[in-house]
């Protein structure tokens, strides 16, 4: 089946992002297709590459990025959520003269149209917040 996953919550502050990651990993293991990851609201913090996590703790942002790259997943950070939270790709960082990108390159900054497209092209949309 084709799944899309929407993540509304920042890592660490709640468990939701961790649950979403386990769900995503598991559905891929089972041979399902992950059509799209969509990070929305505080969820965009999952794509931040500026984070420094203690060695004995899980680095959720890095794990997301690894999963996305390994399985070539289409991963979208909602642009309006991302800008006001300082999660920027190279293009946005340069446009606003804010130095280098703060988002992992494995995710793309785009609009809510990608969420609606995901709903149209997926058998299941599962929300984690």
């Amino acid at each position, binding site marked *: *089946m084709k799944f899309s996953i929407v993540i509304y919550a920042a890592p660490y502050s709640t468990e939701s992002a961790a*649950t979403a990651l386990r*769900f995503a990993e*598991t*559905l891929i*293991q089972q041979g399902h297709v992950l059509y799209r990851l969509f990070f929305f609201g505080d969820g965009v913090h999952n794509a931040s590459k500026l984070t420094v996590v203690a060695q004995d703790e899980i680095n959720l942002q890095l794990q997301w990025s690894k999963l996305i790259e390994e399985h070539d997943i289409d991963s979208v950070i909602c642009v309006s959520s991302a800008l006001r939270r300082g999660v920027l790709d190279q293009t946005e960082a340069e446009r606003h003269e804010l130095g280098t990108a703060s988002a992992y390159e494995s995710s793309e900054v785009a609009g809510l149209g990608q969420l609606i497209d995901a709903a149209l092209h997926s058998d299941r*949309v*599962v929300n984690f917040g």
Partner: protein
Amino acid sequence: MSCLHTINRSPDSKLLESCLKVINADDAILFIEDGVYHCFSLSNLPSIIETVKLYGLREDMLARATLSKTMDRVEVIDTARFVELSCEHDKVVSWF
């Protein structure tokens, strides 16, 4: 058209009450994260109609040490089964 509802907060939230207002008889509820604290409290479960199947996520119960306190009516499942249930039902509605 049956639906899998997930609930991720403790009974101190009103999530289960909200869900129960709009649930259909052939739907199922999966308790995840802090939602697993519903699984041993008698306070809310009686008002769930008998036909609604109840599940709880094992990983979250293990973390919170609530597995042994979980009522028989709740089927304990892992994330793999969570994915399967998402397929078996027509859609997933998340309450958070």
